[in-house]
């Protein structure tokens, strides 16, 4: 502690250690928040359902997505990444997950929403298995904190199905 440099070094090290400590506690405090998100998805229309030139099925749909993810936001949340995936089974793959739409929610006010949108990403199967296929639509979310570990969860909504013939 006999020179400026020595004291400055000691102060800086201690300050950064204490900062790491309060960030860890801030991240831990997230565990005490009560989270009850909800969501609902309706398929408004199947716009196109055809077989591509190289043999795979492709669907284009319009979705009505409504969700209330406001309870996921805490003081330590930077943003929430949300996406909708269609999940189904085929003889070739026991689980297919195709991402149809995603969004980034930057603040709590934007977390309660309802939109009608056609799928942002193409719904293409590996094969021709989609006729009459029953599938689940799952809403996944990833909560990205300002400090700490990211965690993810989902809501599974079963009971959707595609028509039996191409349109």
């Amino acid at each position, binding site marked *: *502690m*006999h020179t*400026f440099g020595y*004291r*400055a070094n*000691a*102060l800086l090290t*201690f*300050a950064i250690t*204490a*900062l790491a*400590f*309060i960030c860890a*506690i*801030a991240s831990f*405090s997230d565990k005490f928040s009560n989270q009850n998100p909800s969501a609902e998805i309706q398929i408004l229309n199947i716009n196109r359902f055809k077989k591509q030139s190289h043999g795979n099925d492709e669907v284009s749909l319009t979705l009505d997505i409504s969700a209330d993810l406001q309870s996921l936001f*805490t*003081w*330590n949340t930077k943003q929430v990444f949300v996406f909708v995936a269609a999940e189904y089974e085929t003889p070739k793959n026991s689980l297919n997950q195709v991402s149809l739409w995603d969004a980034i929610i930057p603040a709590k006010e934007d977390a309660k929403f309802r939109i009608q949108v056609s799928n942002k990403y193409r719904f293409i199967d590996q094969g021709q298995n989609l006729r009459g296929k029953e599938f689940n639509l799952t809403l996944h979310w990833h909560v990205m904190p*300002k400090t700490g570990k990211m965690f993810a969860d989902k809501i599974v909504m079963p009971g959707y199905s595609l028509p039996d013939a191409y349109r």
Partner: protein
Amino acid sequence: MDWQGQKLAEQLMQILLLIAAVMAFVVGYATASFRTMMLIYAGGVVLTTLITIPNWPCFNRHPLKWLDPSEAEKYPKPEVVAVSSKKKSSKK
């Protein structure tokens, strides 16, 4: 700074930083604002820097008593003998 001053400066630094961290967390959690927590903590760090790093006079209240140069001349330094330098090299 003298020895007492150094000890005081170190203790003061640790206590002030701890208080700044605790205050920052409590206020930040209460207002649910991460930004507030960071700002309060940064303010606390700057305040601690201003208090403990410069050579304030309050840290020099027990100055060391150096020997007066006229006294030192009365007792000449002992001559360096060859044996002592050999001892040093074997220690290394």
